[in-house]
Each structure stands twice: as structure tokens, then as C-alpha cells.
């Protein structure tokens, strides 16, 4: 019994980390946009799904999975850049509810557009890695090659982004543009372009997450809704400003959800985000990893 419980807990930890990794990735993409433009992109999940539909649908026409993945991510990046230029740029300096409402409207439009272009049959996007769980000595451990793929993608992206921001001049300029746009402009930094770049980067990451989520799953316009909510909560609990906070909180939500799923109830699982949010924000209302609160009056 003890070993059974131990293997069940281990299984949950693996599964939770896999879910959490994707949540963390979306949370990270939200933080990137928040840092650069102080907009909370409610359409992030849907935009990623749109790009996924554009690229990954070609799998069904015989194209290679990896080529489609690249196509999806590029589509996501273009969509992000255009969105920032057309929808977000005119709203800088307006009340904060305005961009929120606009992005919510955009969310509705994208989901409707996806549903109207692609027939919404239940079609499963094939996975390049087996989703069959490993067996060991007659016991099933709920880890599959696919889960390793999921975690590896997320880890690679997180490391790449960390390197970009910490080690490159472009990253330095992006940070500066987000932290102090006016000063940056005075130093010759092309802030407008960098904000667009922030969106491009963010939707690229978001699309990658959407592709990973949809792989081996039914491709549906609403695939990302639940994950987006979790990711949003992760970003908020992490303090919205902190990439590290978003990642940690994302993993925490994944684990919480997995354990609730296993030990409590499948239907309660969507509540795990709320639970983490309430606990996290009660402990530190300004976010777990935020050093100081700056409030615009």
C-alpha cells in the first residue's frame, strides 16, 4: 500500500509538472507583455490557438509536424506584432480598463474566426512522441515520452528567454524600454519597436505553448481557455512583473491541479487556480516575487 501511494504521488508530481510547465510558459508570455506595455492580454490563449490552427492544420495535409510548429510560431509572432500596432498602440495612456476590454473583444473575435474557418469536428492532432505511459514491473507510471517533450520545450524556451533578457543587448534594451520608456527614448532606444517586439516574442511563446497543449489532443478553439486562466493566475500570484515568479507559480498550479484531480475530484480541478490565487495573494497581495509596489495614481 505504501509503495502504491508513493508511486501514485510520484506519478502526480510528474503529471503536475508537465501541466504546470505549460501554464508557466503562458504565464511567462503574459509577464513579457505586461512588463513591456502594461497590458494584460486576455486574448493570449486564443491568439496562440489561432496560430496553432493556421500552422498545425497543415499536419492533416501531410506536412511535417516540426515544420508546422515553426509555421505556427511565426504566425503567432506576426499576429502579436500586428495586434500591438493596431489595437494596443492607440490605447497607451488611456484608462486601464480600455485595453482590457479591447483584448476581451479580440478574444471573442478570434475564437469565432477560428470556429468559422476550421470545421469544428473532433479531430486529434497527432503527437510526434508516444503518449503511452511507461510501464515498469507491471506498474504504470504516468510519464510518457510526450511529457518529456513537453517539459523539454518549456525548459528550452525559458532558458532562451532568460539568456535573451539577461545576456544580450537587445534584451537589455527591451528591459529598459519596459522599465523606463521615456529615459530609454532619450538614450536613442527605439522603444516603440521594442514594445512591438515584446508582443511578438510573447505571442511566439504563447503559440508554442498552445501547440504543445494541443499536440495529441483534440484541436479546439477553446483548448487554451482553462490553461489561460491558470496562467493568468500564475502571473498574478507571481506579481505580474516577475518572470521567475510566474514560472514558480505556474508549476505550483500544475501540481495543485494534479493532486486535486487525483485525490479529490475532477470537476474541482479548475478551482485549483483560485485556491492558489487566494492563498498566494493573501500571503503577499502584491505578488510573491515583487520587490516593491509601484502604484500609478
Amino acid at each position, binding site marked *: 500500500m505504501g509503495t502504491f501511494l508513493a508511486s501514485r504521488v510520484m506519478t502526480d508530481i510528474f503529471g503536475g509538472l508537465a501541466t504546470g510547465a505549460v501554464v508557466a510558459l503562458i504565464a511567462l508570455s503574459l509577464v513579457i507583455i505586461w512588463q513591456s506595455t502594461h497590458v494584460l492580454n486576455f486574448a493570449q490563449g486564443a491568439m496562440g490557438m489561432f496560430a496553432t490552427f493556421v500552422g498545425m492544420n497543415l499536419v492533416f495535409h501531410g506536412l511535417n509536424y516540426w515544420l508546422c510548429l515553426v509555421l505556427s510560431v511565426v504566425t503567432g509572432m506576426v499576429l502579436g506584432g500586428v495586434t500591438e500596432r493596431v489595437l494596443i498602440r492607440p490605447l497607451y495612456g488611456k484608462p486601464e480598463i480600455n485595453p482590457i476590454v479591447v483584448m476581451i473583444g479580440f478574444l471573442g473575435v478570434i475564437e469565432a474566426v477560428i*470556429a468559422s474557418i476550421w*470545421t*469544428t*469536428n*473532433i479531430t*486529434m492532432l497527432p503527437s510526434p512522441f508516444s*503518449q*503511452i*505511459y511507461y510501464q515498469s514491473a507491471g506498474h*504504470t507510471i*504516468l510519464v510518457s515520452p510526450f511529457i518529456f517533450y513537453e517539459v523539454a520545450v518549456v525548459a528550452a524556451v525559458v532558458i532562451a528567454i532568460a539568456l535573451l533578457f539577461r545576456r544580450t543587448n537587445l534584451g537589455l534594451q527591451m528591459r529598459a524600454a519596459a522599465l523606463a520608456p521615456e529615459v530609454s527614448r532619450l538614450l536613442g532606444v527605439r522603444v516603440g519597436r521594442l514594445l512591438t517586439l515584446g508582443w511578438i516574442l510573447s505571442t511566439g511563446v504563447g503559440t508554442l505553448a498552445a501547440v504543445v497543449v494541443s499536440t*495529441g*489532443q*483534440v*484541436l*479546439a*478553439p*477553446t*483548448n487554451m*481557455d*482553462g490553461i489561460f486562466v491558470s496562467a493568468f493566475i500564475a502571473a498574478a500570484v507571481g506579481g505580474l512583473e516577475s518572470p521567475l515568479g510566474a514560472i514558480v507559480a505556474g508549476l505550483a498550479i500544475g501540481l495543485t491541479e494534479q493532486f486535486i*484531480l487525483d485525490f479529490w475530484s*475532477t*470537476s474541482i*480541478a479548475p478551482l485549483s487556480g483560485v485556491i492558489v490565487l487566494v492563498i498566494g495573494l493573501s500571503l503577499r497581495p502584491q505578488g510573491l516575487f515583487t520587490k516593491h509596489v509601484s502604484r500609478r495614481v
Partner: protein
Amino acid sequence: MSRVRIRRAATLASASALTLGMLSAGLAVSAGAASTPGVTAHTVTIGATVPLSGIAAGYAEVSAATAAVFDYVNAHGGVNGRRIIYLRKDDCYNINALGCTAGVGNTPTLTQTQTLVTQDHVFAEVGSLGTAAQDSVIGYLNQNKVPDLFVSSGSSDWNRAQYPLLFGYQTSYQAEGKILARWILGHKKGAVVGVIGQGDDFGANGLAGLLAGGLSIASKDQLTYSPLDGVTGNFSDITQALTTLKGDNATVVVLDSIPPLTSYIMAAANKMSYSPQWVVSSVGSDPSSVNNPLLANAITLDPYPAANNRTNPWNIWLRKIITKDKNSRAWFPNFYSGAFKGQLDGNMVYGASEGVAFVEALHSLGKNVTRAGIVKAMMTTHFATPSLTPLSYSRTNHQGLQGGAIARIVPNSDPTQPPHFAALLGNAEYTTGDYSNSPIIVSKQKITPIPGYLK
């Protein structure tokens, strides 16, 4: 300031006057002669809310087959000189998502039913489909005294005293569960049995039937999925349920699911290399609707003669009706192209049977068509339909069919392709009255002859 106030007051006064005027006008408008709604000298208008798009769009064939029967009857002079006008309104299985093109809000079934009743003035609803969908409007139909006949669902909800105008059609989920349980007990003795049911009355009634049939299912193996899974694309509860059942070494799994979910569940199980003996409710086992090779060898219940039986007179008659209909190609695309070309399927037989039954009830009324009359006819008519078990209603039983024959889905000769039909394994069985206490009876019903006026 004060002048503004006076003017406002004047506005309000004139508004009140207008109010009274409109009130009296409104009362004058609604005067008219009393007659039976939907019935004229040469027509009877009936309607149904059915999924034509969205998650359960595969069932569109059911009401199309019903309509084809009416078209045939109309072409041959109608019923006692009256043509049947059949209005099929798309309600997307009452779930306005996933490809739903009905264009109606959050309560599609209610909105479409209101349209049928208040705008189209239907005489009755015939063959409206879906448990949850009909549940949401039976109160409305009852309130407005509209008969709701041959509901395409096997829920026990249609058999309630407070709804005297409501009659179910499909094999009762409970009776079906009970008969399936008997097969499992007879053929898979001692096996751990799990069940994955749709999280509404369909799943609940099905489970109740299995348990009434004497099957013991551990409570942790009684699992449900949300019918919204197909809408949200989030199938985590199904994955979780399969993981549990696999962990418990369940070798028999009963599915109370609609066809797309049957297909999904089987695919998901296959992905985790889990292959129990599937036992699938007739709701979700039609090979052409499931369209998945994994369905092969599943056990199901078939209330009708096997669809591939080309000698059964009803099947011959039905083939004629289907192919002769002017809308045939639009309504039955599977009959004209794809893997199931030229084949009758369960949906067609089902829908046509409802059409036949309504024509028989209407026929028995003669010239005098009233709502009270049709309700009475429902309980007195001896229906002759393709079904393997008797269809009969009484004052206390509005359930509809109560059985069928156990059938096995025959694998396709190419195992990578979906199976095409089910083979009946024996005689039809059915229960009568209260499913939980009444025994299972083996049907002696021979093929009922097709009434002369339908030929």
C-alpha cells in the same frame, strides 16, 4: 429649471396616455376564433427541435428520415386528406457551441420551441431529440398544451404523471442497462466492470439499469464525463476515468455516451494501451456515426432489425423512401458517398420508425384532428413499426420502447477501417412497466406487417 420640470411632467403624462392607448389596442388585437392550432382542412403542421449542427449534428439523419416518411405519405395523398408539414428546428442539442449554426442564444432548445409554438403554431412536436434538450422545454410545452410526441431519448423523464401530453420513444436507458447487464453477467462472469456515463440523466438512468440488472460496479468505477467536454475541448475527466478503470483492471467498460464521445473515449483508451470489452449504449454505437475502427467487437443493444439485413420488409420499404425523397442527397450524405455508401444505418431506421408511428396515430383519428384526440390515440394505437420489441403506451406508461436485441459490432474486413454494421446475437428482449422490478421478457414479436396505407 422649473420650466424644464413642467415639460418633463408633460412628457410623462403623455407617455401614460400612450400607455393606456396601446393597452386597449393590444387587447383588441388578440381577439379571434378558437380552433386547433396547426390544423387546417388540408394540412397538419408539426415541429421538432433537433440537432442539425453542433456536437450532435450526426443525429440530423434521424429527423431527416422522419421527414422522408412524411414526404412519402404526403406524396400519396396525406393522412386522411391532410398533408403533414414537418418543421425541423436546429437546437444544437441545446449546446450553442462547437459548430452550432442555429444562431440562437444560450437556450437554443427553448428559443426554437417558442418559435414553433408561438410563431409556427404547431399542432404537436414529434421526434424532438435529446434528454437535456427536451427536459428544458417539457414544462413550456405542457404549459401551452402542446403535445410532445415520440421524444428521441430513452430518459425516464418522459414518463411522469404531471406531463400528460408527453411521450418518449426511444428504448428506455434503464431497460437497456438492465438487458446489457444480463449479457455481461452471462458472458463476462466475475469481470471487474466500469462505466463511463454522460453526466446527465442519460448516464444516470443507464447506470441505474445496469445496477438493477444485478451487476455490481464499485462506486469508484462509476465514472462520468461532462457533455461539455466536446465543447471545451478539455477531455481531462475522460482521461482520468480511463486511468482509474485501467488501474482497477476493469475488463468490461460500459459507455453511455453519444457517438463522437464514444469515438474519443476509445481512442484515448487505445492511446494508453487499454482495451477492455466495450459495451456501448445504442445511443452511441451506430457504426456510421462513431466511424472508428476501435468500435469493432463492441457489444451494444439494437432495437431494430440489423441495418444490413436486405430482406427485412421494413428495410426494403425504408430504402425506397430514403432514395425517392427529393431531399435525399442533402439529408443522407452518407448514403451517397464515403465508406457507408448505399447502406442504411441505425439513425435512418430510428427516425423512420418515429415517422411511421406518428402517421399511424394520426391515421386513427380520422377527419377530426384535435390535440386531445392525438393524445388519446397515442395510448390506444397498436403501433406497427420496424422495432424488434412492441411499442405501446398506456395511461401510466409513456416510456416508449423498452428493449432490443444484443448485438456485436462486426469488424470491417480491413481492420484499419471502421466497422459497418452490428450483428444481432439473439432474440430481442424487453422489460415492461417498472424496469427495476419487472423481469426481462424475450420478445416473441415477429416482423410487424407494414400497414396498407403506407405501402
